């Protein structure tokens, strides 16, 4: 390579905005903000100040919502946040090995979760504590895997809420396959797959989009874009706004304000209803923010600034609904006080249940490895039992 050709490459690089000077970086960020920030296509029904704004397309899905229902959404979000805070505290106290907080994402989860019908089926990641709450899964059941006593402590078919999936994006395919089965059965229910902005980079998610489109499966892809995949920002995951990915697969994509519970509810109702009608998949990008760390093992101070968090705090999902409830006189002091007490009671119950959660029997290692049994597992269980028994003999002497 000649000196001339090296020099000639330089300006091309800066023009592409890939690397190099601070100036170039700034340009890139501005472009990204424009594409993803205050976007006219962001569906919002409640402003951060709690003001109800009209939206011709989605108002119909929440028009008849009662004060009681609004208080219910508020209660769901408050209790979910309280549970989440308790779990974080329990991790700090050594009762849990790890916790993945949903702080900041309550509206996206409660809004979408409350849009599901009992016969719908939910495929979560490992952060869908609010959706689990909506599905009626006892929150303490979510903690077994984080305490290390099991790898998923609930019956998925009990609440049509699948086990948490840790390997990123895999569940999008399970949801699609399940939805293909729903269609084969001629049922009119729908399936919803949760995943995040990081997962949007996974091949499985793209394959799920394609299978769902090709078979017109009744599945809703609900992407909580919380801006961060551990330390990697959106810019490391995508060059286009995520909701636009749907277009290439041949189904609609919508970006909703994920901190607006009412908008999340409306948009998810729209998507689930069209799926139930046989109109196929849809992608919802719930634009939100992970207020906390990725998990209790993470340290966001290494990769993002506090001022970013502060900006999102102003858009807090719970605060905005409270403002709306108060402005509309939908809730009085008594309601908030009662909820506060309920919240504390939940925290106390979670604490007590977790602390009393026993370690599994050591032979659980060999349980349920196979449904129909396996000779090697039987043999190793017997060896393990003999080994354990050898201590009992020694103690007996």
């Amino acid at each position, binding site marked *: 390579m000649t000196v001339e050709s090296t020099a000639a490459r330089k300006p091309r690089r800066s023009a592409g905005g890939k690397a190099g000077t601070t100036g170039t970086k700034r340009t890139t960020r501005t472009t990204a903000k424009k594409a993803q920030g205050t976007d006219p296509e962001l569906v919002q029904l409640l402003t951060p100040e709690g003001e109800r704004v009209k939206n011709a397309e989605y108002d119909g899905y929440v028009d008849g919502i009662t004060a009681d229902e609004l208080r219910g959404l508020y209660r769901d979000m408050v209790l979910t946040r309280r549970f989440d805070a308790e779990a974080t505290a329990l991790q700090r106290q050594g009762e849990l090995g790890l916790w993945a907080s949903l702080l900041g994402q309550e509206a996206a989860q409660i809004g979408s979760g409350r849009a599901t019908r009992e016969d719908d089926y939910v495929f979560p990641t490992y952060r869908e504590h609010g959706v689990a709450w909506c599905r009626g899964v006892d929150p303490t059941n979510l903690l077994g895997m984080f305490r290390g006593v099991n790898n998923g402590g609930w019956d998925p*078919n009990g609440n049509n809420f699948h*086990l948490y999936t840790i390997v990123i994006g895999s569940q999008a*395919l399970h949801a699609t396959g399940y939805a293909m089965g729903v269609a084969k059965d001629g049922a009119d229910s729908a399936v919803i797959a949760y995943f995040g902005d990081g997962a949007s980079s996974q091949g499985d998610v793209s*394959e799920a989009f394609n299978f769902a489109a090709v078979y017109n499966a009744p599945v809703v892809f609900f992407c909580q874009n919380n801006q961060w995949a551990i330390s990697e920002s959106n810019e490391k995951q995508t060059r286009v706004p995520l909701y636009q990915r749907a277009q290439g697969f041949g189904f609609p994509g919508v970006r909703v304000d994920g901190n607006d519970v009412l908008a999340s509810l409306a948009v998810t109702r729209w998507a689930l209803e069209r799926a139930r009608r046989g109109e196929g998949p849809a992608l919802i990008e719930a634009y939100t923010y992970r207020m906390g760390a990725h998990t209790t093992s993470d340290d966001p101070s290494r990769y993002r600034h506090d001022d970013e968090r502060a900006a999102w705090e102003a858009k807090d999902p719970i605060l905005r609904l409270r403002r709306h409830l108060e402005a509309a006189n939908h809730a009085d002091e008594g309601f908030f006080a009662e909820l506060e007490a309920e919240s504390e009671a939940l925290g106390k119950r979670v604490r007590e249940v977790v602390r009393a959660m026993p370690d599994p029997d050591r032979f659980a290692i060999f349980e349920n490895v196979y449904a129909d049994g396996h000779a090697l597992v039987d043999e190793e269980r017997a060896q393990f039992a003999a080994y354990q028994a050898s201590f009992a003999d020694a103690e007996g002497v």
Partner: protein
Amino acid sequence: MAVEKMALAKAINESLRRALDSDPKVLIMGEDVGKLGGVFRVTDGLQKDFGDDRVIDTPLAESGIVGTAIGLALRGYRPVVEIQFDGFVFPAYDQIVTQLAKMHARSLGKVKLPVVVRIPYGGGIGAVEHHSESPEALFAHVAGLKVVSPSNASDAYWMMQQAVQSDDPVIFFEPKRRYWDKGEVDTEAIPGPLHGARVVREGTDLTLAAYGPMVKLCQEVADAAAEEGRSLEVLDLRSVSPIDFDTIQASVEKTRRLVVVHEAPVFFGSGAEIAARITERCFYHLEAPVLRVGGYHAPYPPARLEEEYLPDLDRVLDAVDRSLAY
């Protein structure tokens, strides 16, 4: 007619037909399995008779095929998925190892995933790269999966019936170079257990253990050895997870010598596991170390070299000689 002579591929076809016929929850999924009937015609005619709702041509994405099969199984279906060739399974390896194998355990037994993953495997057909591999050890190593491989038409028929009925995921390795070998299939027989080995030829001097495509070779080896006055016992293991060690043990206690033969590389292969276990079980019976004949620790070679790479009559006889020389 209950007994019919048919090719191994046809036997699988008939077995899948029976499965589709007897259980409406059984589905066939894969690339080109519909109109084309699969690249080996194993699913020939099934879509025509059972419809494209049950015999499903999928997008060309192996992870997608297995991932959606898991979802369908969660919904109560029993998918039988085809991976077109051995070397194409790896895009689905994550779904198989991370999801399919573990979901029963992580649900504490609440969820069952009766999924069969069919994989035509092995070499000897002069194919291009990635079409001749034997990755069975990579699946046998994973708890939660069962791994089987029939060697003949009758087993192909019955083992497929049993695999479809199994509530566990089964990786079903089909010996593609034996697809056209004919054998008698009794469709009214009472089959033995799916994971049981079988003595296909009795002998007294040495045991040859194999499965899938290598069983036929081992029978030829036993014929050749018989001409030299040596009596070899041949075992068809049939299952690689679990392995029927009791049958191998009984044979080795009699013959005192064991040679394991497979196309897969011997390093960390199923032969290594068998050698270790049989050494433990038969230490005082063995007259020679357990020997292995298989592929080398090298990528599967270009077709013009595969005869050098694959175990053949002479290489197995060489191992037999070495064992008997101890």
